[in-house]
């Protein structure tokens, strides 16, 4: 019997690791993966709560999150490929044309 707190703590930890990835990595693909990791952490929390409260709402929400993440990845990767095509470089530390 595992207390749900552990799951939530794990979820939080994974989330922070994902966030850290977004903050410190310069490769947009890895940044993207980190975002996926964050989503995944959130999903874990959802399923844990779903299991505790004996309802499917959390699982269904995870289902939607997975679908949306897939859509996001498709478009995001297409964008990255397009950026690479036009700039021959995808280092996000050099993509700062929105500078103020």
């Amino acid at each position, binding site marked *: *019997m*595992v*207390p*749900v*707190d*552990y*799951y939530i*703590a*794990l979820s*939080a*930890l*994974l*989330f*922070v*690791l994902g*966030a*850290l*990835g977004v*903050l*410190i990595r*310069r*490769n947009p*693909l*890895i940044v993207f*993966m*980190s975002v996926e990791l964050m989503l*995944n952490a959130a*999903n*874990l929390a959802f*399923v844990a709560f*779903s*299991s*505790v409260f004996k309802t*499917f*709402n959390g*699982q*269904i929400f*995870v*289902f*939607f999150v*997975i*679908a*949306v*993440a*897939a*859509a*996001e*990845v*498709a*478009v995001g*990767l*297409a*964008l*990255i*490929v*397009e950026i690479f095509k036009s700039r021959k470089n*995808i*280092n996000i530390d*050099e993509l*700062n044309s929105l500078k103020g």
Partner: protein
Amino acid sequence: MTSDLIVFLVLSLIAIASALGMLFSKNAVYSALFLVLNFITVAVFYLLLGAPFIAMAQITVYAGAVMVLFLFVIMLLGAESLAPSQALPWQKPLAFTLALVLVVEAVYIILSRAQLTAAVASPDASLNSMDSLREMAMMLFNNYLLPFEVTSILLLVAMVGAIVLAKQEKVGLK
């Protein structure tokens, strides 16, 4: 210590380790592989939590499709590792500090709230039967019909968007 707890701890160690591996791999392909491992671990968590459908969907979609797509892009662009740049030297230490603070805060909040200590039931027979799946499907297609349809449209739009973005302009060919 029950066997459940041991399994949980081992798996969470793997999950955290693979997440860290993803974070600190020099090579993006290794990052992706670590993330796949992480996803599979999380899928096992889902199984433990009595959500086989979500677990399978997780593996199929995340590990099977999304991460393969990532690998594709990494390999096609040759983006395994990037040349070092000195754009934001102060970012890294600050990020670590903040992450640490956030973890501490999160753990503090989780431990200080007593009402959620309910234990997660191990996957009992009722959840792992066709009936529960059916129940979930009924819920998905009754209560969540609109979000479901919206999600399908979202996927369609994403598909079209990805195709349009990645499509090569054909020159002189109709």
